[in-house]
């Protein structure tokens, strides 16, 4: 039952009628509520090897990241908006190829929840 990794990663599909009940949320509307101290000098998230992403068939990071840090650029490469990251760690763990170099932002930088 454990998630398969690497090339063996498989996607599962919801029944169409259930999938149709999912709304499409514009994540930026949610991000507006978050306070960040952005480290302009240092990105704490990096892709280790873009060739690996190119080979990754399903690119689940485009979906499961709760703040939409990962998007597909016009050139088909994964782009990282590390400025929006809430440092949850999901991408480090759930990237099927563990292809994300994940570090904590430098002290004082990153998300600063106001409510939590």
């Amino acid at each position: 039952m454990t998630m398969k990794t690497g090339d063996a990663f498989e996607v599962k599909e919801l029944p169409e009628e259930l999938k149709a009940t999912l709304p499409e949320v514009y994540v930026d509307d949610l991000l507006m509520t978050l306070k960040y101290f952005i480290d302009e000098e240092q990105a704490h998230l990096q892709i280790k090897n873009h060739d690996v992403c190119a080979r990754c068939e399903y690119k689940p990071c485009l979906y499961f990241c709760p703040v939409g840090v990962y998007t597909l650029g016009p050139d088909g490469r994964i782009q990282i908006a590390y400025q929006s990251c809430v440092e949850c760690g999901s991408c480090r763990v759930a990237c099927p190829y563990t292809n994300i170099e994940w570090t904590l932002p430098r002290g004082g930088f990153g998300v600063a929840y106001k409510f939590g």
Partner: protein
Amino acid sequence: MNHERIEFDAVVIGAGLAGSAAAMHLARGGLNVALVERGRKPGGKNYFGGAIYTHAIAEVLPDYAERRPPFERPVTEAGFWFLSRDGLTRMTVQGGHLATEPADAYITLRANFDPWWAEQAREAGALLIPKTTVVDFIREEDGQVTGVVTDRPQGEIYAPVVIICEGVNNLLTQKLGLAESDLEPAQLALGFKQVISLPMEAINGRLGLVDDNHGLAVSVLGDVSLGLPGMGFLYTNKTSLSIGLGVMLDTLAEYRLRPYDVLQRYLDHPVIAPLVEGGQLLEYGAHLIPEGGYRAMPKLYGKGVLVAGDAASMVNALHWEGTNMAIIAGKLAAETALEAHSRGDFSERVMSRYKDRLEERFILQDLRQYRGFAKFLETHPQFMDVYPNFINDALGQFFTAYGKPKKELFRNMLKALSDRRSLLRATGDIIAMTRAVMGW
């Protein structure tokens, strides 16, 4: 290069629930403690349901009530909500065990609670060092930890004992080899929620709460997670709701679900939407929850080092417990560090007394008993799908008149189950759940 070596009796990494508890207890024991926090202030990186338990706070800080903790509301009503596609069955309890003063649990917001909690450590004498990320350890050749390396210039802090309360992303624990690797996606739930502002009267009226000294905490099962392994939750703050879900990370990845879409679907549900209607979004956020239980735990101690809280997967997902384990584990780690200081011995043997202390308490006893629970949820998705729907269907039929003989009603109710799950399998599910909870 001529700077003085910074030395403390103990360093605690992370000013969350476990870390500040540890620092408080160490400082009160007479030690010089550095409490290192990567956020601008404590709580800034934390996002949870959720509730904090007074039994745990009182163990570290007996006079906590006089120190005016920033609680939102006491939990005076708690339970499960079973959501079908268009219906809701509530199973909650109030009064009785939940009517105590002070309450057993208080709903809180971490950006308020954690700074107060760390302030108690500071008042006890600990030095809080915010805006500082620990990146490595200072180790002797034999592996004995003798301090931490931070990301500040000349940022080494020496101490004969280090307590790691770094949270779920336990990279430092891994660095020491206490955890072999990262947790697997199936051992983690991604929690995501919205804090939605509403007038106090609206919250009380819509949820049937007498006043703002009454609060509701529920786990929501069923349609909320599209029937997939996960759970919704709802907590009432004074003038806002904390509403969200925890969904297993492997599920989110494999089904390629956008967490914020799933949450919006929950908020749009026909019986949930009226509860949040007109509310204003104050904050959205997400945090991982280590739900792998006993089998996911790292080694809890090493030479001159101890691990507590989420970093050690101290979470009992079924009972929403984790905050209490973190606080008490932090204190037990501090007790062990104090013992090491009084003996002048920071060897692994003395550090291992921490595990003995955890064994004597509910923490390791419960985690061991529930060791099969994570696997059980993974292998029994029916509890997120079949049964919540069945309960709504069956109860709905029971309370509908129809004008037909009751014999037919009961046949239909039974069919509401057997259409979804054979009676034999349903029996097997109940046995499996009992085994998972009882630890058989």
